[in-house]
């Protein structure tokens, strides 16, 4: 009963703490919080240079929820790791571009300056909560450590804050749990603890890299509910990295689709789900069976495999797997073409000089969920 009461106070306090206008917090609604511009990141390996990120541009609005979708190796994680300053250098090498966060180019900052931003203004949760947590340290202590690092508080106050955070993420018995170790937590609880840690310093941006991939569906649903609630209550900005289109449909308002180190399409959730313009996006959407549909038979699969990023193809990276590929696609890469307010696609099919755009008349096949 006591915990229950604590819980409510905490939320209120936390809400107040993040209310726009609080001195020292540069919060202005509907402004670009993070903008990544033409980012290039490579890794030098014994086998050569892997061009993991090849000119990525996207931005996240204050209070928005953006999802980056794509398959393994498409560069979605490397991009956000670079944003967080977590790309190991070497072997990593940032070849160019800008990461503007809250008006500041993060790539120009020293490691020391990054340390004062990371964890404080940007929090991150990872796919595997066990590797994100220190197994030799009590969970509450780990959260308190982050708080102490960034705020001028005593050890006791930081620990109090950790308990508050654990109750914010709906962990029962937070006071007891704070003194337990990660192995005493279940997978879902560990992910909650990770979220608590990421949010402990009230960051402006939460980066969630595959936050539910290692969890069971019912636990995944609980975590998604929690993230949704926290976002609504705290007006938090979430950058979600996921390969699960269902999770993205549930959590995100806008979407960036990446393929082979590049952004191929960006748009609102409905642009992407109902009016996808890039052949890769369309194929991706059609390749997942839906639980609410009864179809047995051929799934629309994408032939082949993603390209080798040691030697990325000259033109569009998707061309070898694309059934609409034209001559130009194998020679030059397409630049983003504007299709709607925030809807951009990098595909020659949509170029004004292409007379037969197969996706021109989108309404003809019923609009949403069709191809």
């Amino acid at each position, binding site marked *: 009963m006591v915990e229950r009461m604590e819980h409510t106070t905490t939320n209120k306090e936390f809400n107040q703490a993040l209310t726009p206008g609080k001195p020292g917090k540069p919060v202005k609604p509907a402004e670009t919080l993070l903008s990544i511009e033409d980012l290039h990141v490579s890794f030098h390996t014994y086998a050569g240079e892997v061009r993991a990120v090849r000119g990525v541009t996207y931005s996240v609005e204050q209070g928005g929820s953006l999802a980056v979708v794509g398959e393994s190796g498409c560069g979605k994680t490397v991009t956000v790791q670079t944003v967080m300053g977590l790309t190991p250098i070497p072997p990593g090498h940032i070849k160019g571009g800008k990461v503007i966060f809250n008006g500041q180019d993060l790539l120009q900052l020293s490691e020391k300056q990054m340390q004062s931003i990371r964890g404080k203004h940007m929090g991150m949760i990872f796919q595997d909560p066990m590797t994100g947590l220190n197994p030799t340290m009590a969970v509450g202590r780990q959260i308190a450590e982050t708080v102490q690092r960034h705020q001028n508080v005593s050890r006791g106050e930081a620990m109090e804050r950790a308990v508050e955070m654990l109750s914010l993420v709906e962990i029962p018995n937070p006071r007891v749990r704070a003194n337990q170790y990660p192995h005493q937590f279940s997978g879902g609880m560990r992910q909650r603890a990770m979220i608590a840690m990421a949010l402990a310093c009230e960051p402006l941006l939460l980066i969630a890299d595959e936050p539910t991939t290692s969890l069971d*569906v019912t636990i995944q649903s609980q975590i998604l509910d929690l993230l949704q609630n926290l976002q609504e209550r705290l007006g938090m900005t979430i950058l979600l990295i996921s390969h699960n289109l269902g999770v993205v449909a549930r959590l995100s308002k806008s979407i960036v689709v990446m393929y082979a180190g590049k952004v191929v399409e960006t748009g609102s959730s409905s642009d992407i789900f109902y009016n996808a313009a890039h052949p890769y996006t369309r194929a991706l959407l059609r*390749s997942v069976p839906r639980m609410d549909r009864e179809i047995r038979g051929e799934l629309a699969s994408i032939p082949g495999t993603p390209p080798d990023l040691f030697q990325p193809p000259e033109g569009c990276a998707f061309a070898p797997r694309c059934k609409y590929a034209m001559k130009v696609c194998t020679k030059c890469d397409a630049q983003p073409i504007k299709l709607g307010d925030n809807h951009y696609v990098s595909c020659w099919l949509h170029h004004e000089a292409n007379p037969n755009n197969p996706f021109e008349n989108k309404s003809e096949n019923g609009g949403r969920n069709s191809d």
Partner: protein
Amino acid sequence: MTEPVLLVENLKKYFEIGKRQILKAVDDVSFTVARGEVLGIVGESGCGKTTLGRTVARLYKPTSGKIVFDSEDTTNKSDAKLLGFRKKLQMIFQDPYASLDPRMTAGEIIAEPIDVHTLARGSERTERINYLLNLVGLNPEHANRFPHEFSGGQRQRIGIARALAVDPEFIIADEPISSLDVSIQAQIVNLLTRLQEERGLSFMLIAHDLSMVRHFSHRVAVMYLGKIVEIAPSGKMHASPLHPYTKALMSANPIPDPVVENSRTRIALPGEVPSPIDPPPGCRFAERCPHAHDRCREEEPVLKEAETGHRVSCFLY
């Protein structure tokens, strides 16, 4: 329906762990699989679905119960006597990185079951290997490569070719696609569907992805904490699930469509799956069930027919 190819009755698989504690991984499970049928087994981690698959494949010795495969009781047979059974029943594993010997070439991996069962020799053997590689969408040139030279999807194809090498009647596929990327998943599911239909294979598909299971299976069984709580034809299970756990599981599975997704009512389950070491008395789902009443906590429900072909283990029906 004709005689089922697989009949499992009251199967139990307990593991002894630590200080005389017993983990009841599979606890009194009964079901059948008809010839040419795909039975999907779904459930969350720790529900016993993998143990069930491995026990049916006789990689584990059952604690009690009965497994009849092709009119032959395989429950207590020794490994030596199971050779004939293994030729008819093969497995495909989840992790194509762990289930292929890194020191063997793809050709050797596929040839191993052929050699064990002495099915072909010399040029016939090579022909068979090439045929299998082609069948799963690889080239004969791939036979000399090692697993690390293949992508995840290609490795899973090698695993499938190995399972098909002995021309089995029945395949147990344990999460065959969950380690693969979305666009590759569809390729593998299409391959399995094609092979299943062309060869009239019977399947037990063990998976946690409800949408994939719905797509591929004729019938679906839902497991919770070592028990089958509901079993029904795939369409029926998804259109009108009966067990509260099945309902919650389905409502938790996100649908890749924002309009549908944001208008759905979800049944949020409190807490987590209890430990199978000391499962609660009565219905194992009772403590998380929104409809639980006193009887559920005292008495254990049994799987009984609620509608034709649709069995559920819940006092509500």
